């Protein structure tokens, strides 16, 4: 009798908890670098984009209010994963968006897989996220290191840059980018002469650049990002490295170009998934962003908006926030908005076109933030890891 009462009580308890899950707000979490090296390319403005998407969707999905939580991971993987765990366990988070820094994204992907929550990666680049470390709950939405290497690397090697030396940020993202770029260089008949790895957030690059210069390579591949990229470019110019070697920035955001100025970046080729001035819909989004922040959005901030919007659409279509059902809806639907057109593959990789841009000269640039011209549009099937190359089990059905 007692046992029966207990079971009944528990059943009621569970039912109550379950219904609370279905009536409370739908919570979307966003964990990124809010205050350090990567805060401009994503950061607080990225979080605001997710809120915009929630508002534009109507503020409600499945008749439940949408709530956006944000947190700063300070570029620490343990901070990121414990915050993700806390939100999922205590706040009943429905979906998590991971911002910049691959180390943190790889850590959060593990938590999301264990707890079965959709995990959308925007700012982090490591292609491991949908390859060796793939998970049924991870979506890699914007760019990745393979696409940067394939799009920017291939173009440079084909243009005759055969000998490469890498200056690499010493963490997950740098390794992935250097590795993927090396593969592309070798596949196109080039060679990699050497590499030097610098700590994240290194302020002085002169010593590393001197090592690069003495390698006698033709191309210096910068496998780093944000402040590390801008300081390396600046020192390269100061030491005249840009006269003896061609410099390839493998991950360059528009904020970096703006910060360095066209005089320091003219002619630089770079791969990106989106540019504010690419079409009318993008310009409209960019104007709204500019009115608030007095700068143009990066591709990551555009992707933050897009991924949140498409997730909400998937929840609406699936009629539930259940992770498995939402994931299968997401992977089944076509993504088509101002950010990009594409489809999410079984391994979670969103396959969309990437663009090879070239930085304009000061003469060519006619309006503020008019920085890029399009060199080539690379179809998604060529830009990302192919199913044949993939080591992810989800692709092998």
């Amino acid at each position: 009798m007692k046992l029966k009462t207990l079971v009944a009580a528990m059943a009621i308890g569970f039912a109550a908890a379950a219904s609370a899950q279905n009536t409370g707000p739908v919570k979307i979490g966003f964990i990124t670098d809010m205050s350090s090296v990567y805060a401009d390319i994503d950061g607080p403005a990225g979080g605001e984009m997710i809120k915009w998407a929630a508002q534009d969707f109507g503020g409600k999905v499945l008749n439940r209010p949408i709530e956006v939580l944000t947190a700063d991971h300070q570029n620490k993987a343990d901070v990121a994963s414990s915050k993700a765990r806390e939100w999922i366990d205590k706040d009943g988070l429905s979906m998590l968006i991971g911002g910049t820094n691959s180390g943190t994204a790889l850590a959060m992907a593990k938590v999301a897989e264990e707890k079965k929550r959709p995990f959308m990666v925007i700012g982090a680049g490591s292609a491991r996220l949908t390859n060796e470390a793939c998970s049924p709950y991870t979506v890699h939405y914007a760019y990745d290191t393979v696409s940067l290497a394939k799009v920017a690397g291939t173009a440079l090697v084909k243009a005759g840059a055969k000998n490469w030396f890498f200056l690499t940020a010493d963490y997950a993202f740098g390794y992935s980018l250097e590795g993927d770029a090396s593969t592309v260089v070798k596949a196109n008949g080039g060679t990699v002469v050497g590499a030097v790895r610098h700590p994240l957030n290194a302020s002085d690059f002169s010593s590393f650049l001197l090592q690069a210069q003495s390698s006698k390579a033709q191309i210096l591949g910068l496998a780093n990002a944000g402040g590390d990229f801008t300081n390396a470019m600046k020192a390269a110019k100061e030491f005249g490295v840009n006269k003896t070697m061609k410099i390839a920035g493998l991950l360059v955001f528009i904020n970096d170009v703006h910060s360095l100025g066209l005089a320091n970046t003219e002619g630089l080729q770079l791969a990106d998934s989106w540019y504010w001035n690419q079409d009318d819909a993008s310009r409209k989004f960019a104007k709204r962003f500019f009115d608030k922040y007095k700068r143009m959005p990066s591709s990551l901030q555009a992707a933050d908006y897009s991924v949140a919007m498409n997730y909400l659409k998937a929840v609406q279509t699936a009629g539930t926030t259940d992770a498995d059902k939402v994931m299968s809806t997401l992977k089944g639907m076509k993504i088509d908005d101002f950010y990009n057109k594409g489809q999410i593959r079984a391994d979670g990789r969103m396959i969309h076109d990437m663009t090879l841009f070239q930085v304009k000269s000061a003469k060519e640039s006619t309006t503020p933030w008019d920085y890029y011209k399009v060199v080539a549009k690379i179809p998604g099937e060529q830009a990302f890891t192919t199913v044949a190359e993939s080591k992810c089990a989800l692709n092998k059905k």
Partner: protein
Amino acid sequence: MEIFGIPHQAFLGQLMLGLVNGAFYAMLSLGLAVIFGLLGIVNFAHGALYMLGAFAAWIMLDKFGINYWYALVLAPLTVGALGVLIERLFLKHLYKIDPIYGLLLTLGLALIAEGIFRELYGVSGQNYNVPELLSGATNLGFMVLPNYRAWVVLVSLAVCLGTWYLIERTRLGAYLRAGTENAALVQAFGINVPLMVMLTYGAGAALAALAGVLAAPIIQVNPLMGSNLIIVVFAVVVIGGMGSIMGSILTGLGLGVIEGLTRVFYPEASSIVVFIIMVIVLMIRPAGLFGKEA
């Protein structure tokens, strides 16, 4: 010829670059040592003052068209005046209590300054060009050294030695040192000790700002540039011996060189080598290499 497996030309080049970075460490740790030695304040705002110096130079150029050479004087004066204000408003109340309060206060001020500039200018950094006169590079035989870096080393050495001379060898320096030993007695001799202490903090702040102006053309002017550096500089001061002026100059230069060489032999460790040395020094000589054992 090779040294430790790398060509000696490259080795000399790396030594030179280490010296350039060491020059910054020396200037910053010197300011810290002066402030600690004379005020007993562990000035955690030093990195922020360095950042403010760089931003002051950038704002002067960007908004008012004041060039590098004027900024070299005006930015330290501005930040020095701010230092005086900080001393008058906050620090002077803290001399008689536990040093931890001074540390917390200056850390708080640093975070506020950093936060304000991050809010205003973001973290991408602002570009400051090398002044025309110092652009270009000189071939030293073993490396091509940008003229600007050579300038940095010269200015830094001149400033460091000048400060050392002022404090250790002049009458004013003697008053300062006496003031820290026994303020009441020095005051009794008719010397205005509070004024002296106030100006000392202002001078320390100006030194940090000068380092900031010198750094502006080399790295992107960024609200985080101070906090990236300050921890290393504190390690330099601890290794050199808290409050020892010559110690902080020599240790700054030496550690710059050691860090530079680490960038060649084991680049991954270059950001922690200073701290490894700090641990070893603290174990063997807790008062630091040049500090007096208590």
